[in-house]
């Protein structure tokens, strides 16, 4: 079976039948694809003045998600594919998956400004280990701030749908009353489920008040997601209480601050090797000096033989002066110099 499958796919590929099939499927219906998950945005819901939920109808390639997981959303902005991770805010049992997006950063702002029902997006498979254990622990604490509520909302909806809310305290932080995402849904759930205690706080998270709000916080399996400041203070509080093992966290891409070029580290993802960058020479030259043998051709930026996936970090294109700092961008090694710690897909 496996061999037959492999033969068939080689046959299709060598006769270019695979890409023809992909093209004609897409011509028949834009969401049809054998290779990728495409989803149609079917509804856009305003949650707060700067947060919107996008309800998606994916094609058959979507394999569902576990509550708390995220997915890669890919859109095309002015002809360029751009992707970002978003937590799913819907429960796994819901008819359609949804993401909830705060207007911040390039891609999220673009989603707000440009995406209306009918828009097509691409999704990666659901991923992430920020999920509830199975069966769900009896005593739970959800601690969130701002748009960090999205993955824990998915968990809450999942527990509610399965009628599995035992003893759950949900502490959410928002800037103001109007900034509470899902406020109506939360209130409705709190009214229906006696085991759910909902605490909404305005302003900064204050770890000194935690003991008063949730005296047994250290004994609860806790799920934490929020802005970096909140996360850091909460992690410190749990560490002091000796309860770090019960704290589960989900971080949104808080990239490392760019370091100075010299002294920055170049890390190679495949071999795990790293070496310090120097102030002179392209990344290609630096790799070669470090004993690596990456593919290259012209060494002047025209042939693209040395193109390589940059997983993380900032590099500068010496021809254009353009900075590349997004994760997972392709760069040309022969005309790039590192500006921070860089991880390459080599």
């Amino acid at each position: 079976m496996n061999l037959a499958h492999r033969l068939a796919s080689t046959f299709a590929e060598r006769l270019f039948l695979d890409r023809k099939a992909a093209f004609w499927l897409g011509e028949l219906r834009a969401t049809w694809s054998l290779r990728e998950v495409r989803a149609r945005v079917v509804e856009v819901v305003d949650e707060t003045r700067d947060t919107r939920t996008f309800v998606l109808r994916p094609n058959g390639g979507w394999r569902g998600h576990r509550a708390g997981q995220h997915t890669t959303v890919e859109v095309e902005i002015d002809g360029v594919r751009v992707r970002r991770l978003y937590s799913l805010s819907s429960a796994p049992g819901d008819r359609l998956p949804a993401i909830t997006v705060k207007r911040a950063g390039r891609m999220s702002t673009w989603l707000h400004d440009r995406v209306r029902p009918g828009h097509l997006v691409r999704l990666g498979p659901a991923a992430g280990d920020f999920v509830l254990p199975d069966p769900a622990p009896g005593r739970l604490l959800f601690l969130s701030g701002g748009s960090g509520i999205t993955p824990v909302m998915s968990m809450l909806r999942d527990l509610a749908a399965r009628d599995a809310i035992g003893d759950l305290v949900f502490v959410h932080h928002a800037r103001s009353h109007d900034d509470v995402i899902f406020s109506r849904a939360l209130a409705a759930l709190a009214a229906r489920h006696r085991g759910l205690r909902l605490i909404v706080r305005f302003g900064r998270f204050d770890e000194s008040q935690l003991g008063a709000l949730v005296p047994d916080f250290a004994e609860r399996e806790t799920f934490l997601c929020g802005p970096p400041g909140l996360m850091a203070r909460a992690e410190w509080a749990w560490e002091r209480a000796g309860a770090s093992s019960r704290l589960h966290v989900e971080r949104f891409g808080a990239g490392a601050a760019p370091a100075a070029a010299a002294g920055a580290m170049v890390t190679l993802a495949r071999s795990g090797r790293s070496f310090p960058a120097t102030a002179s020479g392209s990344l290609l030259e630096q790799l070669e000096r470090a004993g690596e043998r990456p593919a290259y051709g012209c060494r002047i930026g025209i042939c693209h033989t040395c193109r390589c996936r940059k997983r993380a970090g900032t590099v500068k294109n010496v021809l254009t002066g353009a900075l590349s700092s997004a994760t997972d961008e392709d760069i040309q090694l022969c005309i790039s110099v590192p500006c921070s710690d860089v991880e390459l897909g080599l």
Partner: protein
Amino acid sequence: MTHASKTLTPEQADAFGRELDALRQDVIADLGQRDVDHIRRMIRASRYAEAGGRLLLGFGWGPASFALGVSALGTAKILENMEIGHNVLHGQYDFTRDPDLDSRSYEWDIVCTGDGWRHSHNYEHHTFTNILGKDRDIGYAFLRVGPEQRWHPTHLIQPVSAALLALGFEWGIGAHDLRLDEALTGKQSRAELWARARPFLCKAGWQLAKDYVFYPALALGNAPRVLAGNLLANVMRNLWSFAIIFCGHFPDGVRMYREEETRDESRGRWYLRQVNGSANIDGGKLFQILTGHLSHQIEHHLFPDLPAARYPEMAPRVREICTRHGQAYNSGSLWRQLGSVARRIVRYAAP
């Protein structure tokens, strides 16, 4: 042979290069939806033309549908090879990050492998353009197209061998990567030759199977008609691409370089060599598309990794910069350039 271009001092060459760099930056800053829309339109046109051509050949009857089928399939192949494949393989659409437009994974519908092409064409030909002994695309290493190349008795039959190359051009460029000449002179070991030949033979086998076994078999009783139609469509693509590509570097007025001249070449001088080593073909928009925008060979050689559909709008500025710096900008009609290439192939067959 005299060349119309002025010789520039290093400073003048740098200034020339800076102006072209600035033009390049302007276009890079403007890349976006328009470019992606264009290439997707081309892919769509090629797919529809191919499907139409194959259906007409497979299920049509009579000579009219046969001729139409061959033209549609041949046009689809020309679009796929020249406007889509060649340009995608140059990395012109890598900025889109669309896996279907990715230069490193794209495979085109021609016997020459994408990998072989990326090396011999993108790297060697585009880096060492028109340097004798380094650019193996000069006369494809067996034709003498200029007095700078040393004469050899085998050149006597080159009018015939050039005509044969035109008919089977895809096989010519596929075999070009094998460096058979170097294997004959002992510069390449058998193991190296085999390493180059294996992927080529593998791809060529599948290509033959596709056009001469698989599609004819699908048409059942119409198989001979499909086979003949596919063969003619391939020949149509071969003749067209041969004509366009030979007009790019071999007409009168195109310069060749000796290796010594290009040692420690600055970026400005590299640009100068690209301008003086290439020639354009005049034509309208449809013609430009069918040549894969190699009608703008000069712009292509200056900016091989910018989307080719941008060349026509860049051309007036390139021409203006060249004129101001005293550089000849070689452009002529298809018939003039082709006639010039044909005359040279005949003329330089003799010592």
